[in-house]
């Protein structure tokens, strides 16, 4: 059993009009299948990338992986346990939550604009009761900031005092503060400039080496995936159409959608 195992993961959304409207206008129910029987497995310490365009279902899978959405069918197990299992006790659910964290796409919406950085980073530590002593908590906050390439003095500032790239670093520090084993990265660099993106991607890679982290990396950019992933899964409209290592995927793509994506991606080739 792999560390992260998705089996026939499915998620539908009911977009139908309210019952009365449907009854009067006699329109059928509209169900959107955002994720359709997707299965994949991630080995501990590796990066699995999910690539797709908008509407492919990648963000929905990311949300299910961290427990923000429940699957309508199928399962996503982390170390054999299911976040959505109703039989799990409260403490067990909390303990499992601590092990899976997320880095979000938008550097602007992912940090509470009214909180100081030190409070943002301290919150998970307090919520998971990792450190009780307030002074030790502050030390840990400083340690986290330095790990992501920021200064201890930054802990007293507000998010708007930082650039987009720095904010993503703070987001990464926040994810690290719960001492997780898995981090789901939902398009973490899509909103960043190229040179900043390089810094953040390198940071993610070095953190993975240092802490043996497992990444589920969501993106639409095949080039980014190429530097980050051990294995790539290509999603098209909710279905997993191809799954390969980068070497094979880029040289011998089998699925027509994958081939189309590879062709369409703008390249610096002369």
């Amino acid at each position, binding site marked *: 059993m792999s560390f992260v195992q998705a089996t026939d993961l499915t998620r539908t959304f009911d977009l139908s009009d309210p019952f009365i409207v449907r009854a009067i206008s006699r329109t059928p129910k509209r169900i959107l299948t955002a994720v359709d029987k997707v299965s994949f497995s991630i080995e501990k310490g590796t990066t699995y990338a999910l690539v797709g365009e908008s509407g492919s279902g990648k963000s929905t899978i990311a949300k299910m992986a961290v427990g923000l959405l429940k699957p309508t069918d199928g399962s996503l197990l982390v170390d054999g346990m299911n976040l959505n299992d109703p039989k799990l006790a409260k403490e067990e659910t909390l303990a499992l939550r601590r092990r899976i964290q997320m880095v979000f796409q938008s550097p602007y919406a992912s940090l509470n604009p*009214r909180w100081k950085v030190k409070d943002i980073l301290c919150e998970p530590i307090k919520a998971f009761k990792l450190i009780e002593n307030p002074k030790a908590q502050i030390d840990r906050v400083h340690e986290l900031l330095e790990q992501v390439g920021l200064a201890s003095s930054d802990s007293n500032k507000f998010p708007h005092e930082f650039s987009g790239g720095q904010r993503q670093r703070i987001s990464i520090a926040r994810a690290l503060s719960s001492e997780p084993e898995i981090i789901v990265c939902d398009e973490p660099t899509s909103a960043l400039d190229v040179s900043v993106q390089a810094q953040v991607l390198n940071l993610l890679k070095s953190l993975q080496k240092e802490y043996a982290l497992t990444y589920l990396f969501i993106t639409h950019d095949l080039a980014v995936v190429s530097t980050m992933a051990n294995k790539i899964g290509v999603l098209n409209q909710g279905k997993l159409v191809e799954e390969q290592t980068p070497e094979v995927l880029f040289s011998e793509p089998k699925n027509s959608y994958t081939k189309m994506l590879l062709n369409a991606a703008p390249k610096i080739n002369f």
Partner: protein
Amino acid sequence: MLRFLKSDFIYDFLRAPVAIISFSVISILVLSAIFAQYIAPTNPFDPASLELMNGFTPPMEPNMFTGEVFLLGTDDQGRDLFSAILYGLRISLFVGLMAVSLAMIMGVLLGLIAGYVGGWLDNFIMRLADIQMTFPSILIAMLIFGVARGLLPPELRYEMAITVLIISIGLSEWVPFARTVRGSTMVEKEKEYIAAAQLIGLKKWQIMIRHILPNVLGPVLVIATITFALAIIAEATLSFLGVGAPRTEPSLGTLIRVGQDFLFSGEWWILLFPALTLLALALAVNLLGDWLRDTLNPRLK
């Protein structure tokens, strides 16, 4: 604090004449009300200090019986109008402030819950709001006032007048707060920092109070200033109609009602000065609120 004084907000404030003037007017009135007992020559609420013979004295003219001079004249019972205005301001400001606070707390909480929890609770609260908005707030205030009066035994009616006034005005003004906060809450709820808070297992109420509340309070301040002006006018109206502050401890509204009776018999000052004070207060608060709303608007980059 120092950071606040150096902030862009203060910078803009010092460059807006409207804001400076309004703020100064409000400050003067508030300070006068707070220190009324030191500024006012007499205590108009003490029936023993009143001399009926002083009544109907025009401003700055010696009374024909006692020879006393009053800055703004006296009312029909011999009260020095200047003192009465200062003490009356106290009541108006106190009622206004307390009523706004009540409306604000109620409205913000209901708005947060409606916006964050959604579903039938949201529907229920919003329909309550809709129903309430179909009635003019004075009517609602009078309704609550009447019910309270009916429920309270006669001895308490007098003392509780101010409390009932506050509750009735407060309960009639919560809707704008709730609607605005609900809208902002629904926007903030979709932002990723809320998802991050959910990921660490925080309960709904913790997320609402710790994360969403600080981010939706911005427009609340503006609505509060405007509601404050409304509350003061509401209090004056209720007192004017005779269901507010009593005759012996008059607020500005009561004074205006009294003054109205005597306007056409020539004692114009009893109406004019309290009315001018009320006008100045309400106008200043409204203008300041308007300016606040424009300044606090997130600027385009």
